[in-house]
């Protein structure tokens, strides 16, 4: 049995819904990892949240196109709007915080710690 690139590719094909669901799962886990791991800047945490949103909408679109129902794409559109609103407010809060404290390192943000 000869191992070749085309044989490997053929065993993984054709591209199905499972591929997209696995990809979005991976993306979601990477976003979660970003939330856990990142102890430096709030701004990178916001980016990790954006990745989570992307994973969610990728799932919506994959199922929408697999089932031939456009409703999933409508909801992906609403996810996009929500993500835009979230990032706007998040960055505004960040700017205000930086103006008051001159730092947005996560270790410095501990005012609410008792």
């Amino acid at each position, binding site marked *: 049995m000869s191992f070749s690139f085309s044989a490997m590719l053929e065993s993984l094909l*054709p591209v199905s819904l499972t591929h997209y669901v696995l990809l979005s799962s*991976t993306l979601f886990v990477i976003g979660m990892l*970003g939330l856990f791991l990142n*102890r430096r800047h709030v701004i990178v945490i916001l980016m990790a949240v954006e990745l989570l949103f992307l994973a969610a909408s990728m799932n919506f679109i994959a199922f929408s196109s697999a089932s031939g129902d456009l409703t999933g794409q409508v909801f992906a559109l609403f996810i996009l709007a929500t993500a835009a609103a979230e990032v706007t407010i998040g960055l505004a809060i*960040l700017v205000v915080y930086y103006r008051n404290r001159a730092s947005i390192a996560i270790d410095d943000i501990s005012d609410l710690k008792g």
Partner: protein
Amino acid sequence: MLVALSPFQLTEGLVFFAFAFVIVACALSVVVVRNPVHAVLLMVAAFFSSAALFIMQGAEFLGLLLIIVYVGAIAVLFLFVVMMLDIRIVATTKSRRKHVPLALAVASLLLAELAAVVLLDTTSAEQMVAKPSPPAPTRPLLDNTTELGLLIYSDYLVVFEIAGLLLLLAMLGAIVLTHRTRDDVARQSIAEQKARSEKARLVKVASKDGV
């Protein structure tokens, strides 16, 4: 087991794996790179590749929207903030690195669970979405954007308007949060000027005539 694949399926597979690789690599880099500017640019690359995958699945409108909204607007917003704030690039210290094993363990557990649900379930994802009897379309299908518009402006009209309201609120919120009245700049106050003396009054000066 091996079924003959059409050239289209082979190409589709190659394109999918290329874009999927770019997405995963860029997303991982977003999480681990030190420089926030690099993180923003890598996030843009990830979103761009996802837009390509959206278009591949027939969601052209959302794919292009993703490029316009994320690459055109949100990435610029992020870059503005990253460059406006003087963020030091800090190295990870040992105390921070002690979270890494736990985070990796939780993440791999989550990934294993998700993959197990998708791969090991006896009812495959395709079967889940397979409807018992798909209703026959009563009219010929139009292109993706038109169909989406027909759906948004009929069934989801209220939700769509609420989404618009949400965006308006976000805009107002951002302005209210970041706006400040500065005391160190000279600024005309007409009310104060007028109240200073009774003789002073505002005159509308005709053009080329003078006072």
